[in-house]
């Protein structure tokens, strides 16, 4: 459809010739500066190239050295536990963090009427429980939390008659308490993301008749994730490293195996070189994945 105003504007555009560019003799007409191929030197991810080259060199050295390859073989038996704990606990922390982040982003005011008043009072209690959780677990060393969970909390639960399908010092306990610890951090990450969304969008949603949970689901959360991907990636990498704390529960992850091996032959430097290589290959893969995710979300918008 072309409106009357549009067609009038078009007619005007046809009638009025554009003034020719003023040409002064001796001065060449303006041209855009050609893009120098040098620009690619600046855009190229040199650090990745460096890592790949060094990585290949290390892989070859490990493969060529019987001692290193023996360490690698024995240590990589722990990768499975490291990854299970990291992914499991991080997934849990995402769920906890998102939920508590939403609760903490919208502190309730006094409600209206009997139903509204009751709902908001329950929300008020929830808000303070969640705040207490975040503040307490954020300030507690994760090692302390894990030891407490495995040797005090879980046995106490069992004594109280709860039938747990796993032991206190198990991978499940480790995942639960790491998730609780990281959930407190992610809660604040999500809260920051949620609060970065302009208030006008919430008003627009309300004026269209959307309910609170619909606004959160369709407007707030999709935009929050875009904002919080970089800090979430940060915490994911930190989680891979902190998963080494499960050795406190005598779980045979990479770090625990390293302690055992080096403790038996005192070859600390070589064992821990291989440990560094294994952790770095996991964390760098993780950060590369986060980068790709960030890039894809960015291009989708524009």
């Amino acid at each position: 459809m072309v409106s009357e105003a549009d067609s009038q504007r078009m007619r005007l555009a046809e009638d009025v010739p554009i003034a020719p560019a003023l040409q002064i003799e001796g001065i060449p007409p303006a041209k855009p500066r050609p893009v120098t191929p040098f620009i690619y030197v600046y855009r190229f991810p040199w650090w990745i190239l460096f890592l790949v080259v060094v990585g290949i060199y290390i892989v070859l050295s490990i493969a060529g050295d019987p001692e290193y390859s023996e360490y690698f073989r024995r240590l990589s038996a722990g990768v499975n536990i490291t990854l299970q704990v990291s992914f499991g606990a991080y997934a849990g922390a995402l769920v906890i963090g998102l939920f508590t982040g939403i609760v903490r982003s919208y502190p309730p005011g006094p409600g209206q009427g009997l139903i509204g008043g009751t709902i908001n009072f329950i929300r008020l209690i929830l808000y303070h429980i969640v705040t207490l959780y975040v503040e307490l677990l954020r300030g507690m060393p994760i090692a302390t939390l894990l030891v407490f969970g495995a040797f005090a909390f879980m046995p106490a639960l069992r004594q109280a008659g709860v039938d747990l399908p796993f032991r206190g010092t198990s991978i499940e306990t480790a995942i639960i308490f790491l998730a609780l610890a990281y959930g407190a951090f992610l809660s604040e990450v999500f809260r920051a993301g949620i609060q970065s969304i302009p208030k006008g969008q919430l008003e627009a949603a309300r004026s269209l008749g959307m309910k609170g949970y619909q606004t959160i689901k369709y407007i707030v959360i999709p935009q929050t994730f875009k904002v919080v991907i970089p800090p979430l990636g940060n915490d994911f990498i930190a989680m891979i490293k902190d998963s080494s704390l499960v050795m406190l529960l005598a779980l045979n992850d990479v770090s625990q195996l390293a302690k055992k091996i080096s403790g038996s032959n005192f070859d600390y430097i070589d064992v821990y070189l291989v440990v560094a290589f294994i952790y770095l290959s996991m964390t760098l893969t993780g950060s590369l994945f986060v980068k790709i995710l960030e890039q894809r979300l960015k291009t989708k918008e524009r």
Partner: protein
Amino acid sequence: MSGHINRNNRIIQCYGVNKWFGKFWVLKDINLEVYEGEVVVVIGPSGSGKSTLIRCLNRLEEHQAGEIIIDGILLDNNTRNVSAIRREVGMVFQQFNLFPHRTVLGNVMLAQRIVRRRSKQEAMQTALALLDRVGIRDQAYKHPGQLSGGQQQRVAIARALAMNPRIMLFDEPTSALDPEMIKEVLDVMKELARSGMTMIVVTHEMGFAKEVADRVIFMDSGRIVETNTPNELFDNPKHPRLQNFLAQIL
């Protein structure tokens, strides 16, 4: 001007409406009746309570005393009433407030799907027809960030219209626009007024008020100071505050 005014139906009724922000008295004894199909333009200096008044009409702000009745529904603490009123009242904001993570089409379809519970096909048809009406159907698959301000505001109008509101509120819809784009938005609003929509428009566009309004309201420091037909109000202002205001801007 719209010629569709139904004098038998007072679709908006405000009686003795008062509101405070903390200790600041924003709305003072507002009495206002708007007929179905009427176009009311609200003018006045900044901070006079114009925006707050129309934001009270769909409960973006809560009034603290008095009665507001929209289309026969009393606006009170009952959330069911509030929802019912919001379905009948569309709103257009100064800052557009489009959802940047959704396409133009997605913006116009979303509330239809989840509030009106329309099927995907029906929502899409309505959306495309409305985008056609505001003249940006060819931009349907772009994101709001790729559009000009005027185009974004027209999407916002289409988004509000998609809910089939009986009343449209405009909160300074052209104040954030480049001069060149103001006209394209006003044209859409004029067309809407001619179609018989009940409209309350807060604006500084006096030309629009003169041409389109059935009635102009002048507000100052929280009160409705004068209300009249545009011709009378602009050519023959009675209150000295209005005379002063018009002398400043015309």
